[in-house]
């Protein structure tokens, strides 16, 4: 079993008051997320990316099709807590996901719910706080921290549950650039430590650093592949009124004007390297 998550023909629909027909938030999606991978899911608002994430964590259950986390079907109620422990979730709003008015108590919340022994909780809380560089702030009240710090606490709260996979639902959407960098750095460190990462975002620059990029639109997977493969379809991405990373856009425009430049360049660093190479 090399798949952390398997999604089989997932459909999620819900009723809206103003429409007779149910809305298909996720419309026949099949995906496999490899263990230890770093996958970014991109899409506009309402593209179904958040709904998809909540289906993986069994916060929402499929209307049809099935979702498996580490082989457990999310519809299986007996495995619910195993699923949520295996696939931890971090949400968008840093304020609305912290439970306690003391940082370390908040990090302890997950392990406490799992019924872990007190000494073990202490150890996990300290380790998690160290790994997000927030150990110094462990006694503080969350409302006195910056957005980036709060989001790091939320991540620590998930790490303390010892998940194998972390799903992050637009974790940087409400942060300033500084906070965004802090959080992204932590996410990459966790990935290097072997945790499967599923990052939902609408920042292309973040997605460009993943192993795999999935672009969703209207509940369907539109593009799926390595960043280089996906961003090679710059035109299609733009047609979905999504941005492409700056470097990709530059490559696209240069190629349009007949400049020969490889399509595989997706980050600003690569672009700089390429140009420097050419100039030498």
């Amino acid at each position, binding site marked *: 079993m090399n798949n952390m998550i398997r999604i089989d023909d997932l459909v999620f629909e819900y009723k809206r008051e103003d429409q007779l027909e149910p809305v298909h938030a996720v419309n026949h999606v099949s995906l496999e997320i490899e263990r230890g991978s770093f996958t970014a899911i991109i899409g506009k608002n309402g593209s179904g990316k958040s709904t998809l994430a909540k289906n993986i964590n069994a*916060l929402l259950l499929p209307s049809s099709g099935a979702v498996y986390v580490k082989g457990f079907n999310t519809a299986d109620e007996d495995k619910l807590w195993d699923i949520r422990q295996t696939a931890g979730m971090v949400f968008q*709003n840093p304020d609305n*996901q*912290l*439970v306690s008015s003391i940082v*370390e*108590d908040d990090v302890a919340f997950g392990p*406490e719910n799992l019924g*872990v022994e007190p000494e073990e909780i202490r150890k996990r809380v300290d380790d998690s706080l160290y790994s997000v560089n927030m150990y110094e702030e462990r006694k503080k009240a969350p*409302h006195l921290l910056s957005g980036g710090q709060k989001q790091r606490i939320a991540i620590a709260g998930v790490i303390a549950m010892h998940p194998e996979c972390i799903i992050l639902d637009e974790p940087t959407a409400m942060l300033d650039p500084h906070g965004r960098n802090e959080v992204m750095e932590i996410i990459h460190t966790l990935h290097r430590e072997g945790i499967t990462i599923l990052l939902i975002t609408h920042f292309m620059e973040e997605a460009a650093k993943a192993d795999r990029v999935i672009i969703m639109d209207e509940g369907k997977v539109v593009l799926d592949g390595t960043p280089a493969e996906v961003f090679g379809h710059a035109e299609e991405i733009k047609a979905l009124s999504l941005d492409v990373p700056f470097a990709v856009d530059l490559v696209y425009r240069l190629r349009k004007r007949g400049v020969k430049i490889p399509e595989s360049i997706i980050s600003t660093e690569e672009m700089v390297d390429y140009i420097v190479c050419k100039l030498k």
Partner: protein
Amino acid sequence: MIRDITLGQFYPGNSWIHRLDARIKIIWTFVYIISLFLIQSFWGYIPVLVTLGLIIGVSGVPLKFILKGLKPIFLIIVFTFTVNMFMTKGTPLIEIGFLTITEEGLYNAAFMGTRLVLLIIGSSLLTLVTKPINLTDGIEKLLSPWQKLGLPAHELAMMMTIALRFIPTLLEETDKIMKAQMARGADFESGNILNRAKSLIPLLVPLFISAFRIAQDLAMAMEARCYRGGSHRTRMNGMKLKKKDGAAVILMLLYLAVVISQAQGLFGRFI
């Protein structure tokens, strides 16, 4: 400015009293409140005053800080005092029109007033020297024996914890909405009471919506972190009674014994 508010009215410190187990402090407060109602005469207040003075002294909370807590209930004290003064029958002292102040009335008024002041000081002392979060833990622990009878002890404590956590968040939200509405010409300050109450509607409606949204987000985040009520939970900082907590209990029993024996007139011969 709103970010700096203190939660509850906790006075930060690290005194012997601060470090006592919250449960002991809650029980102490209850014993103290009950003891006030056992006292029958002014002499009875002496052990109470001595104890209160000692506790305040050890806790290091400035007296000014404590007396500030009396401000909001000042009217109630005045009311109690006045009612007792005029409504007690007995030997008339002064007569103003149809109102008579009696000797007994004056005595009663002073007695009741003192009781009320001591009551407030004593109970506010609990929140002054106990962190709100420890207080909720203590309440949860103390109520847990009633869980078998269907009292949702854990849920109550969880609600209090979350309320404490979200007070600053909701204040910030209020501030934001207020500024947004003011930017669009809302006026929260002028006009009579009715107008001012009306002007709060554009503040309260968005605030409620926002509170519901926060609640929904939080519920989802808690579920994602495997929250399933109190039954499976363990705690990182289990409350353990220490030696000083035992000492506090002994002191409490001693205090109670003094108050009761005084109330029973055992000291009558000496005083």
